[in-house]
């Protein structure tokens, strides 16, 4: 195999050279790599803030940083991780790269708009980073009024403008995906033959298009009230602070599903590829994505159970929050059933998928505690919540992202990565993650509030555990960064289908040519059909 040197044919990486060929590209694959570099940079910045937070919380006193600094650290951690890493990560990197290929298209429907959305994302990021380096923001990523509009002395408007701008990038990506899925599917690729990754991105795009304008309006209103003293949220000006919370969570709860649905799509692909078995209950997995997207829009009020919101409104939000858990449970059961009687390999992407299923299950189940009104009263705004959403966002979304990155890395770069190191990193992430966040469930139920620079001494043991876990987790994230970069030059070539997986992306060369397909493919069955179907008897 060593006789294969570099790929002799033209591909999207070597077809053009120079900075301009990247910055002006309209190729969805190159744009995906632009996103890959930028979201990785933001992940590193957000991770740095997280490490500062964990260092401060090793001791109960505010001794490593002052409370004001601490407040800015957790705010910048949240803003950057949510808006500049988690939301774009899987859709804008893996979705951008894979979705057109998976539907058999040469590119997304609007290649220029795709590039525009990256520039918008970078512009928004620059605003937020400027806010960070010129003094920071201290409102929490939730920007709650009237603190954000009347009380905070930090760069709220600057950071808000960053979030506002970046939202358009999200909207444009969603728009591009939806049009592409509707209009550009290859002949024979019916809706019910679409890969589940595409279904989950379709559902995600719906949320991006319908939800993101509301957060844009909300942060704009904060800026207007802060800058022009127009009374919208601040009761001293005749406004209503609870209105802010309704508007904010109307987007920001569905935003959680923007983060997790793509990771579910990745997991569906990995489980099928590495169990060499088609998904169990295709239609149920596909429609559960849509169910999550739709019901997910109707649960935001569970963030307001202790705000004095009407009890009867609370009842509705509570029961809907329980209902949105059901499609997630259905997915978990179907993934588990897919492994049954599979031919299961334990390659690193599958380890991430196993990790995803385990951690997302815990994240989802602890969500039930918060949907339950009487119990939410106690755990609301404590570390129990912090633990819950990190199990969903880090244990779920980031595990899915890393799993997908490992699964498709050979396709994206044409090269493998060192599998031994990858397994070791996956294990390190899993152990580090649990050590970081499981103790937070306990310290949260004990009553430790979130966003505390100082805390009662009896909470210290659990915080030390968390901080120790965070350093292990950091190592687990740095290892893949190193071997991925190393692999670009030194790793063995992958060939077009190193996993023996089935799907349109595995039928074209690695890395793919610029136009993806030399001849438009004709699709006759679903992806991941490994064994002859019993019922129909055709291969």
């Amino acid at each position, binding site marked *: 195999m060593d006789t294969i040197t570099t790929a002799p044919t033209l591909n999207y990486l070597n077809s053009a050279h120079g900075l301009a060929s990247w910055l002006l590209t309209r190729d969805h694959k190159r744009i995906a790599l632009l996103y890959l570099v930028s979201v990785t940079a933001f992940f590193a910045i957000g991770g740095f803030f997280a490490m500062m937070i964990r260092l401060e919380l090793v001791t109960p006193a505010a001794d490593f940083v002052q409370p004001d600094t601490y407040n800015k650290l957790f705010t910048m951690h949240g803003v950057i991780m949510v808006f500049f890493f988690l939301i774009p990560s899987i859709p804008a990197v893996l979705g951008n790269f894979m979705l057109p290929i998976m539907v058999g298209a040469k590119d997304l429907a609007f290649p220029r708009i795709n590039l525009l959305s990256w520039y918008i994302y970078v512009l928004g990021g620059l605003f937020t980073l400027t806010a960070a380096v010129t003094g920071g923001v201290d*409102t929490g990523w939730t920007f709650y009024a009237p603190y954000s509009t009347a009380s905070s002395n930090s760069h709220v408007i600057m950071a808000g403008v960053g979030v506002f701008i970046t939202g358009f990038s999200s909207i444009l990506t969603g728009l591009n995906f939806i049009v592409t899925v509707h209009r550009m599917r290859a002949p024979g690729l019916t809706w019910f033959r679409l890969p589940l990754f595409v279904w989950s991105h379709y559902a995600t795009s719906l949320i991006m298009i319908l939800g993101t304008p509301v957060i844009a309006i909300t942060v704009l209103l904060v800026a207007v009230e802060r800058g022009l003293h127009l009374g919208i949220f601040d009761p001293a000006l005749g406004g209503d602070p609870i209105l802010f919370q309704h508007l904010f969570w109307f987007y920001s709860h569905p935003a959680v599903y923007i983060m997790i649905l793509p990771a579910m799509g990745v997991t569906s692909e990995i489980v099928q590829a590495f169990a060499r078995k088609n998904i169990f209950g*295709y239609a149920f997995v596909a429609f559960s994505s849509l169910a999550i997207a739709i019901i997910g829009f109707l649960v935001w009020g569970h963030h307001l159970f202790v705000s004095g919101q009407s009890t009867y409104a609370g009842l509705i939000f509570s029961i809907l929050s329980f209902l949105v858990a059901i499609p997630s449970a259905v997915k978990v059961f179907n993934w588990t059933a897919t492994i049954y009687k*599979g031919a299961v390999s334990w390659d690193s992407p599958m380890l991430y998928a*196993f990790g995803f299923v*385990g951690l997302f*299950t815990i994240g989802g189940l*602890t969500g039930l505690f918060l949907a339950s009104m009487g119990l939410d009263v106690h755990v609301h*705004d404590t570390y129990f919540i912090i633990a819950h959403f990190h199990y969903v966002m880090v244990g779920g979304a980031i595990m899915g992202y890393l799993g997908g990155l490992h699964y498709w890395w050979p396709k994206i770069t044409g090269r493998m990565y060192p599998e031994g190191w990858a397994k070791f990193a996956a294990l390190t992430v899993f152990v580090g993650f649990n050590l970081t966040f499981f103790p937070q469930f306990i310290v949260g139920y004990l009553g430790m509030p979130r966003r505390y620079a100082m805390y009662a001494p009896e909470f210290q043991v659990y915080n030390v555990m968390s901080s120790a876990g965070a350093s292990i987790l950091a190592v687990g994230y740095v290892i893949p960064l190193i071997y991925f970069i190393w692999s670009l030059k030194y790793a063995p070539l992958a060939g077009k289908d190193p996993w023996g997986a089935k799907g349109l992306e595995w039928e074209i060369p690695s890395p793919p040519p610029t136009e993806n397909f030399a001849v438009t493919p004709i699709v006759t069955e679903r992806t991941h059909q490994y064994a*002859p179907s019993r019922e129909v008897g055709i291969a």
Partner: protein
Amino acid sequence: MFENLPLFPEQASEQAAQVDALFFFLVAVSAFFAILIAMMVAVFAVKFHRRRQDEVGDAIHGSIPLELFWTFIPLGITMVMFVWGAWLFFHLTRAPKGAMEVYVVGKQWMWKVEHMDGQREINELHVPVGRPVKLIMGSEDVIHSFFIPAFRVKADVIPGRYNTMWFTANAPGRYHIFCTQYCGTKHAAMIGWVTAMEPAGYQAWRSGGGATGGPVENGAKLFQDLACNTCHKEDGSGRGPVLKGLFGKEVQLSSGQTITVDEAYVRESILNPQAKVAAGFQPIMPTFQGLVSEEQVLQLIAYVKSLSGEGSAAPGTSATQAPSPAGGAQPPAPPAKKSGMN
């Protein structure tokens, strides 16, 4: 070593055990499903481990009965959680009649507490065990949240409106108060202590001095000082509505709507009188926005409530109110000055 690793907070209120019961139910269900799924994944991953390079899995497409099974079983279980949680929430948020009322004002970054008999505290709250205590809470600036982990109760404290919470402490001791809604630089320092005391000890503390007249008395004094009584006359000859017996009643507004006179309406009528004018009266009342502090608004509300016999106080306190039934036989009132009522 395990005293350093507490798993559950202490239970110091009657509500705590009820919340914990639901918590344990959810922990049990969650542990069952998490372990079940982890075991299944692990067993399948090992049992069906790929042995040959070209091995593939069976073509199994699904099973409708199984899908229905694992849709409706979780649905049923979550509906139990929903009903239990909703029932508990109603219980946690509906204070019983006759609860002892305490006013709490949050501001950056402290908790100011005013008892009905005039005792004031900062970042401390003394309560007797065995008696329902209802906190009526407002904020002077941004949103705060009042949380007593040992009692399992919490409510946001929001500027411009009043939220309430209640509890019945059942174990003497000192317990944390935390602000749980991020409120700025010293959010983490906006903490305090609840001291739950045996009734005898509580009485001793209560009569320990420092009382400067309860909110009802202070409100009555303000009512005169601000000349409210020139329009809101008791005999109905004034230009404003008679306030006696008004609190808790439904009134007709000039807009034709009706509204129940509660804390929020009284507050609004003081600060923004033109917003909801009672039917039959001219919109001539001036605003008191900026003239009265958040605490003074609370005192005026307490006074208006006392005119309707509302607002159960600590035993035998206010000048305008008969001792509440629950406290009728309690020891003498603190050395509060009697304010001159007209």
